[in-house]
């Protein structure tokens, strides 16, 4: 070995490195298919079909998009700051990918079980701001500067709200490490969403705002600032930003799933149902059933396909689902592998459900104006998060042991938070009409005076 590094030096590094490689490889594909999912769901919500042309039912669309983005010319604006312009997207992508280090995909499948896992992810996602801010500044145009400033302000303010919401979740879990949190939920037999709904609600809103999505997608509000900080980017660099956004979305939903929706635990994990004497529970069959169902549905679609290639691609997908179903079913027999694979499956399913919520918000809600965004963040979310935190703290201190008494105390805590929430909402409504400066305050410039 060069430099006298012995094999056992590297041993602790092998597993995480492999996991990291798997994630970095799978992520762009997953981000691509989430884009496809988004376009499909958006289309069906708006009474239209969505991408149908590339591959059967648009299944190959993400690959087509990726190739297109790679081939697109990569323009750097004339007097842009070359170093920053190159560094910014790189920064935001690395930060997004770095956050995956602590995400527990399954009991075994985790890159690094830091004992400050949650804090680590929070720290890394707060670095994401640099990618946006520097990108906006480097492209040296009014539009991107305004966009970058807005998104930075938005991220900073909503990070506090997200942090507070997570802390209230942590009080229940007791530990910072992600794996520890899931075990705590398993040991307490209840997902934290049921005993701390408010912190989940606050975290949901804050996470949407943090990834610039849905009602809070002000920085790249197409109608005003023409794609905000991403205006000057094109081709591959633009896709880096895009990948960072979707990676962030998955990280954020990963945290929510781990903290509130019981990580890799099977829903109703406490319920043990045995039907006709089979050794494994009914619910464990679910993953296999789902995959076989998907395979059947795809094969039905495949038969209806016109051209030959479409049929071929469709059958490819059918085959893939069949293999996955088989793996799920086979893993039932070997108890050692079962928790790992099933855990990963349930984690990904929950992440997808959470993401579906993201997409759903995007299509129904109009966009917030910037000052409303700030007002909601500072005057509603953060105070509510603080109150919620205090309430949960009191509940835990009063009731030492977990289990049912804790649940009752938590219900009382949440009722108090509810009252405070209503009061805050009524507060918020009073100055609903944006306070416009009186006419005389503004310089009285007749129309057409500015040169």
């Amino acid at each position, binding site marked *: 070995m060069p430099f006298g590094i012995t094999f056992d030096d590297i041993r602790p590094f092998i597993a995480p490195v492999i996991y990291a490689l798997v994630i970095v490889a799978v992520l762009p594909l997953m981000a691509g298919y989430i884009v496809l999912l988004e376009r499909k769901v958006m289309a069906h919500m708006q009474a239209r079909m969505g991408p149908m042309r590339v591959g059967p039912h648009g299944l190959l669309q993400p690959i087509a998009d990726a190739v297109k983005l790679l081939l697109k010319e990569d323009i750097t604006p004339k007097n842009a700051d070359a170093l920053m312009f190159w560094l910014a997207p790189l920064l935001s992508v690395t930060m997004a990918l770095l956050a995956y280090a602590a995400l527990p995909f399954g009991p075994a499948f985790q890159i690094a079980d830091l004992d400050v896992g949650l804090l680590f992810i929070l720290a890394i996602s707060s670095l994401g701001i640099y990618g946006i801010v520097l990108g906006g500044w480097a492209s040296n145009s009014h539009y991107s500067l305004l966009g970058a400033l807005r998104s930075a302000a938005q991220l900073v303010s909503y990070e506090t709200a997200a942090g507070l919401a997570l802390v209230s979740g942590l009080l229940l879990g007791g530990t910072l490490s992600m794996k520890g949190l899931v075990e705590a939920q398993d040991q307490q037999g209840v997902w934290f969403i049921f005993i701390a709904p408010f912190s989940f609600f606050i975290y949901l809103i804050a996470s949407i705002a943090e990834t610039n999505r849905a009602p809070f997608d002000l920085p790249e509000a197409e109608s005003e600032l023409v794609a905000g900080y991403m205006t000057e980017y094109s081709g591959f660099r633009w896709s880096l930003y895009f990948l960072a956004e979707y990676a962030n979305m998955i990280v954020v939903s990963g945290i929510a799933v781990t903290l509130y929706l019981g990580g890799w635990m099977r829903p109703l994990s406490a319920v043990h149902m045995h039907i006709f004497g089979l050794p494994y529970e009914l619910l464990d069959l679910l993953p296999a059933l789902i995959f076989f169902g998907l395979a059947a549905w795809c094969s039905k679609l495949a038969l209806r396909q016109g051209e030959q290639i479409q049929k071929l691609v469709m059958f490819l997908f059918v085959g893939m689902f069949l293999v996955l179903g088989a793996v799920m079913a086979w893993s039932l027999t070997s108890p050692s592998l079962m928790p790992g694979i099933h855990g990963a499956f349930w984690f990904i399913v929950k992440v997808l459900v959470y993401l579906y919520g993201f997409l759903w918000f995007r299509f129904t809600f109009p966009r917030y104006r910037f000052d409303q965004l700030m007002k909601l963040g500072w005057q509603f979310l953060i105070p509510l998060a603080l109150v919620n935190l205090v309430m949960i703290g009191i509940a835990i201190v009063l009731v030492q042991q977990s289990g049912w008494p804790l649940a009752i105390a938590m219900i009382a805590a949440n009722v108090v938070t509810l009252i405070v929430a209503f009061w805050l909402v009524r507060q918020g409504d009073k100055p609903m009409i944006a306070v416009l400066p009186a006419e005389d305050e503004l310089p009285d410039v*007749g129309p*057409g*005076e500015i040169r």
Partner: protein
Amino acid sequence: MQRFKARFGASIIEATLDRKQAIILVAAAQWLEISKYCRDEEKFDYLADLTAVDWPKREKRFDLVANLYSFPKNERLRLKAHLGENETARTLIPVWPVANWLEREIFDMFGIRFDGHPDLRRMLLPEEWVGYPLRKDYDILTQDQAWVKENLGIESGQ
């Protein structure tokens, strides 16, 4: 009509009825006073349209036409005034602020200047355009060759 005659006497040149629509021909000098009178006493508080017509054969070639409407009386009235080649008219902005853009368009199309207008620039055509398109002597095929060549860089072949 009698009220107008009593109020302004000489400056009302003629009042006619064309296709059941009241038209009052007014001397250009009193253009602002009469408009103020129309708005205040006669309650014509809505300037629907302000435009001009070019009669090259007449010595006072331009017709300045203002279509008024009164909400209380639900009536329409048309004020007209004759203007010479480079005679200027008083701007109506103090009476009806809407006249700002309308007068700018008339200047753009006919070349009639309005003194007292805060920002008399061309409304639709580019700033450096030469010529006033809606004048009768401005043939439909002519174009400001210089501007087109310089800005658009094309031989402005029709």
